[in-house]
């Protein structure tokens, strides 16, 4: 049974089919939502996403992409609803021809950190990115999606995803090079 079949059965009240569908995507959607709008809201995003599927609010069209892209597309809709207007506006930054420079080679804060500290610091740096760049990092780096899949989910050209990811990495390097660990974590949690 493929994922599209699981959706069809779940919508008819098949608990086993739904459980398989949920188990296959729940964690990835939760992580995406957690990075985009916080862990507290991530549970709600997961719930709203699967409720929308069960209630047939958005039909799955195999011609438009995979079930994963379909679910992430729904989740993204609920994520965007939770972003502030200022954060949501970052998705319109692609038209700007701004130079994004990589920082000079300087000792990175990552060089001197333990694994746990590294995770905490990088996580905080990701959280401090503008939403559009954060999304590119989450989808392409943390979820290891292809640019094409990320573009399908974000409803933008592949080139836009690539440029967002490039800028995001540059910003992350800048933050990680220039900031002390504690400062970055504090700024991200403020």
């Amino acid at each position: 049974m493929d994922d599209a079949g699981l959706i069809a059965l779940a919508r008819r009240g098949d608990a086993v089919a739904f459980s398989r569908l949920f188990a296959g995507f729940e964690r990835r959607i939760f992580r995406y939502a957690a990075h985009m709008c916080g862990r507290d809201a991530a549970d709600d995003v997961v719930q709203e996403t699967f409720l929308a599927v069960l209630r047939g609010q958005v039909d799955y069209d195999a011609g438009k992409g995979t079930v994963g892209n379909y679910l992430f597309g729904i989740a993204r809709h609920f994520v965007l609803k939770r972003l502030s207007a200022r954060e949501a506006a970052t998705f319109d930054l692609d038209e700007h021809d701004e130079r994004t420079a990589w920082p000079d080679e300087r000792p990175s804060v990552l060089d001197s950190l333990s694994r746990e500290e590294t995770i905490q610091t990088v996580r905080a740096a990701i959280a401090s990115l503008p939403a559009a760049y954060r999304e590119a990092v989450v989808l392409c780096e943390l979820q290891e999606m292809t640019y094409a899949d990320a573009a399908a989910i974000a409803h933008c050209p592949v080139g836009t995803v690539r440029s967002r990811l490039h800028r995001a990495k540059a910003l992350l390097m800048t933050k990680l090079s220039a900031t002390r660990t504690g400062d970055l974590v504090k700024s991200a949690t403020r």
Partner: protein
Amino acid sequence: MRFDVENESGSDERLTVGLRAVAEDDERLGASNAVGLRLLAEVQAIADARRRRAMVLSLAAAAALATALAVPAWRTLQSRPGLPVAADGAVVTRELVTEFFPLRYSNVPARGGYVVRMQVPRTALAAFGATAPAGISNDPNILADVVVGDDGLARAVRFVQVIEEEQTP
């Protein structure tokens, strides 16, 4: 759109390691059990609703089947021979009769008599001294009520025409 890519490789490597560490750490994250239970309840509600719909449809189908079987059976019983029928379009008969005409022996006294209905050749009526009036069927045979005295002599005759008509509602 331009990017400065100097120093990218070295920085990117450290960043990639950091991102991998975050991704691995993310593996433990997932929606709470409450979300899964809430959604399973929704699936159960869908299943229950479908069962109810299926039951209603089954009952409706059974009712339709019972009706489909009962109506023809009822009609069959209603139209069984021997039972009175009061249906639209039924054929009813009525009789158009003339007055009684006296015959040759009408003046012969009789203590009693009776009426005999018979179908007689029109030509035979002449033997009784009677002819059918206008308006009576021109068939070669004609229906007549004959008053016969207890002595067997015919005293009078009237002519009868049976008319069949379809009853209109």
